[in-house]
């Protein structure tokens, strides 16, 4: 069966970032700046992507604005006809910088916040003064009438202030609030004990969201999903392996999921040497876990197989050692107890974590 054309391109422009969030989705083995794709290479790729059926590009990182040629990259995406979304920490862009991006054709800004107030936010982000700079950035975005989503990354050290984060989104004039529970890959997995919320915390947050969503209907769109470790069924990771999204790393590797390089036995093509169309339809890596043929029981016989696609391959591998296993988040997985045990262990753990920075990766990650 021919797979559908991709909808989205997640462009990881760089791994450089002034923040050091302990839940970063980047791999533990960070790429240094010297080997990044050039703006011209990205622009060529955006045209290939649009030709292939991609509609939206998400400019991410690291911090995409750590690249001085970001306006050129935005202009390239816009010229290719893509809807252009900037995923930023907001700490490096001033008003002139935002204006330049808007002029280059930027459609939307997603600004991350680490907490509702600066002391905790700066501790989590690992950058003194970072939160205040984010607030100034949000004001600059609002002044230009650019669409703004506030992305509140939540975990056990800030989830109890979710009401304040919702108030912050309103105060900043955001159109949308994404309440993003940490996903436990890469750095976040290494720091899971310090971050995974308790069931009680989660239930309080979920109830709050249900109530506030109703109150704010038509004013603020709130995106919220139950996080993996407390869910019954897994998420369709990236909308399914090779179903919707292509991730391209700073060095040009094309991945079906941003953590896919953690999987053993897979080689990923590079957009410097291979066409995006061939990568999407023909590469061994994009076909490896595409569809349902690779599945084992219980996924193979499950009515949800084409709904959640067996969950996340990287999470299955990280937790069970088998990339083709059912994501243990699923309560039908024979290894589901691993996830339950992780919650119990995190409940009993302290708040200390390892910051994400070059050379700071823990030697081993105990899943």
């Amino acid at each position, binding site marked *: 069966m021919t797979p559908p*054309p991709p*909808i989205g391109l997640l462009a990881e422009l760089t791994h450089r970032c002034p923040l050091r969030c302990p839940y970063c989705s980047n791999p533990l083995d960070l790429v240094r700046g010297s080997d990044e794709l050039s703006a011209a290479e990205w622009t060529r790729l955006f045209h290939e992507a649009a030709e*292939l*059926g991609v*509609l*939206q590009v*998400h400019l991410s990182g690291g911090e995409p604005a750590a690249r001085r040629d970001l306006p050129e990259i935005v202009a390239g995406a816009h010229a290719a*006809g893509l*809807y252009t*979304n900037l995923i930023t920490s907001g700490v490096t862009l001033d008003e002139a910088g935002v204006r330049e991006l808007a002029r280059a054709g930027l*459609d*939307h800004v*997603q600004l991350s916040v680490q907490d509702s107030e600066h002391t905790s936010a700066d501790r989590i982000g690992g950058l003194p003064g970072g939160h205040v700079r984010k607030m100034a950035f949000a004001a600059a975005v609002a002044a230009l*009438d*650019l*669409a703004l*989503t506030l992305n509140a990354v939540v975990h056990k050290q800030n989830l109890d202030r979710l009401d304040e984060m919702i108030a912050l989104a309103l105060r900043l004039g955001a*159109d*949308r609030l*994404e309440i993003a529970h940490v996903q436990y890959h890469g750095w976040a997995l290494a720091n899971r004990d310090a971050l995974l919320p308790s069931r009680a915390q989660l239930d309080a947050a979920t109830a709050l969201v249900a109530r506030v969503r109703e109150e704010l*209907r*038509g*004013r*603020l*769109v709130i995106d919220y999903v139950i996080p993996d470790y407390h869910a019954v069924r897994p998420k369709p990771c990236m909308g399914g392996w090779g179903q919707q999204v292509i991730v391209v790393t700073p060095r040009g590797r094309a991945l079906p999921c941003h953590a896919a390089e953690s999987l053993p036995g897979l080689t990923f093509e590079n957009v410097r040497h291979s066409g995006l169309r061939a990568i999407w339809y023909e590469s061994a890596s994009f076909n490896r876990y595409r569809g349902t043929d690779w599945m084992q029981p219980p996924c193979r016989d499950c009515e949800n197989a084409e709904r959640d696609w067996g969950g996340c391959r990287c999470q299955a591998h990280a937790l069970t050692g088998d990339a083709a296993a059912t994501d243990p988040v699923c309560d039908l997985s024979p290894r589901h107890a691993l996830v339950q045990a992780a919650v119990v262990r995190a409940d009993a753990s302290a708040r200390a974590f390892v910051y994400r920075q070059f050379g700071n990766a823990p030697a081993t990650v105990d899943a």
Partner: protein
Amino acid sequence: MTPLSGSMVPRLARGMRLTEDRTRGRLVIQAPERLFVPDETAVHVLQLIDGARTLDQVIDELAQRFAAPRGEIATDVQEMLADLMERRVVVA
């Protein structure tokens, strides 16, 4: 549902773009990290929502174009717009 005022001037909210999806042969509304695929009727309405026409003018235009009773068109358009406004795709 409270009926929307005929004099309001609806427009796509910031960050929303009605674009052609050539690969899949359809029109879509590009939204922040999501995509709305309007049905045929909605496409007709959305193409008239330009931040200049009033809701009454949109309804008049459609009633004329489809030679349909104005009341019926008005009900359909009102319902559709109310839904799009709740989801902040359209603002006035």
